């Protein structure tokens, strides 16, 4: 009974909704809401990687590149073409999906280290383009993003953005959970365990992998667009190598393949630097140490380990 409850889709969504609803009641100032909104955005990006890495078992070390596409779409569209930011968010997501579709075909044939390096190289090239094409992207300093107006209502302030990002995360989590339980989700989990066996049972392995890659890219682009619009600024660092590593670290620290794990991992890596501002110089060392420590001592991640412990206590 308890086991069923802990692993049900509805329970995850209700718990997530409860957390999103409760945080504003506990937050002592708007600053905390702002940090929470950043957590929701990164959780959304991490959810895309959860589908790719957790369900399908394919790694991407260049995922921040898609985040950058979404961010720059929201920045460049209104500034250069006078398009509405919301439309640009959709265009950015579509572009990221299209690029993932085109690049994913050859890249996803690779496995293990080779896939990791190919996606890494792809991400670095994207970041370099954002860095160098300064007539479009503003170069290394990045560019301002115009304030968003929706139906005559100016979207600004930590509270408004908190609900927008929280809502986006709820939708993202709902879709990710449903994908996990759909035939495609089961196919992805099957090819994660054994590609040969999955292909033997009639699963089109390369098409399913490609679908997971495209979905992951769209998630990242939407998150990138929201992040850029919320911050009012986008820089090439958003698409950089370190960001890609942080996204992967979120998914693994939270718990590979767990939707709630992506949220926990994102919260962990976003809140930690804020909590450590008094020892700012050590931030990089602490991040590196945590990644190593989690990989070595808690490879399953926080959420699955906690769930297992809870189930053992209950039974």
């Amino acid at each position, binding site marked *: 009974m308890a086991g069923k409850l802990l692993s049900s889709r509805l329970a995850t969504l209700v718990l997530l909704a409860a957390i999103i609803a409760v945080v504003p009641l506990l937050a002592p100032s708007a600053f905390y809401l702002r940090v929470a909104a950043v957590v929701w955005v990164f959780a959304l990006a991490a959810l895309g990687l959860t589908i790719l890495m957790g369900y399908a078992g394919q790694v991407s070390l260049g995922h921040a590149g898609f985040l950058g596409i979404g961010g720059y779409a929201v920045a460049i569209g209104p500034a250069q073409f006078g398009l509405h930011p919301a439309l640009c968010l959709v265009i950015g997501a579509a572009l990221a999906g299209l690029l993932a579709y085109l690049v994913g075909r050859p890249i996803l044939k690779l*496995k293990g*280290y*080779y896939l990791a390096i190919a996606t890494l*190289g792809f991400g670095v090239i994207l970041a370099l383009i954002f860095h160098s094409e300064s007539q479009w992207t503003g170069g290394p300093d990045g560019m301002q993003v115009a304030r968003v107006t929706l139906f005559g209502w100016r979207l600004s302030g930590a509270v408004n953005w908190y609900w927008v990002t929280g809502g986006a995360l709820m939708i993202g989590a709902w879709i990710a959970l449903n994908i996990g339980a759909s035939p495609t989700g089961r196919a992805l989990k099957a090819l994660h365990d054994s590609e040969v066996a999955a292909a033997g049972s009639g699963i089109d392995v390369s098409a399913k992998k490609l679908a997971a890659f495209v979905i992951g890219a769209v998630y990242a682009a939407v998150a990138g667009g929201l992040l850029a619009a919320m911050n009012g600024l986008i820089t090439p660092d958003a698409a950089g190598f370190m960001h890609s590593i942080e996204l992967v670290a979120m998914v693994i620290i939270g718990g590979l393949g767990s939707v709630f794990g992506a949220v926990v991992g994102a919260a962990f890596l976003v809140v930690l630097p804020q909590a450590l501002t008094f020892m700012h110089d050590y931030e990089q060392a602490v991040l590196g*140490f*945590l990644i190593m420590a989690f990989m070595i*001592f808690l*490879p399953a991640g926080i959420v699955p380990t906690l769930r297992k412990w809870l189930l053992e206590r209950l039974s």
Partner: protein
Amino acid sequence: MAEFLQLVFSGLTVGAVYALVALGFTLIYNASDVINFAQGDFVMIGGMGTVFLAAAGIALPLAALIAIVGAVIVGLLLHKLAIEPARGASPVALIMITIGASIFIKGIAQLVFDKQFHSLPAFSGDTPIAVGGATILPQSLWVMGVALALFVALYLFLEKTLLGKALLATAANRLAARLVGINVTIILALAFGVSAAIGAIAGVVVTPITLTRYDVGTLFALKGFAAAMVGGMGNPLGAVVGGLLIGLLEAFGAGYISSTYKDAVAFVVILLVLFFLPRGLFGGRSVERV
């Protein structure tokens, strides 16, 4: 023609460093199946360590020696504290561990050293030598000479010494190596130590040309990795040829096309090689090790 020659010289100089980083990758990959993303940070430790020890008044050769020993200690600790405890982890987990180690080393380096660019004086002066209309810096000859010497030394070590053969045996089949009485743990530590030494030596000789900073390791690692992959993962000769090739392509790309995208060359090469020659120019034994 003079311009062409000039680009060849600069390409071979950087290429020699990439080749050394790739050689370090290959050594660790062969012995332990781990791709060590912290390889570039050994280059940084060699360069930065020498700069700061020399600034403290220690003679350059001694400073370089201490920095190289320091890098070897870091390499051994990396193996002992991070790789060994995670035995049996998946390739992705191992990649994340070495990336974590690389971030950690950079974090410590900016505390121990600083965040500025540093240089070393060239070993034999800065007077360029004229060759066929182009010029070459004496330090470039140092880089290429040291790379060649290290490659020959590594070859002799692997082929002519018992310890080297034990390393090759461990690379070929770890279980069989253990059965014939090879202490595999020591061999793996040896691979990490030698690999760190190669990286640090490369860092010492290249610093007068390219400068160094706490975070230069990332690009060296990525390009060295591209070199190792172009040559075919696990093949030492391939690593050297791959390194020189990437160095040359980068120099030609910067000279004839655009210097903005110089750093993209290595990644475009990786993607092309992976798509069209998944086993590299010199064909590794297998793409996936089971």
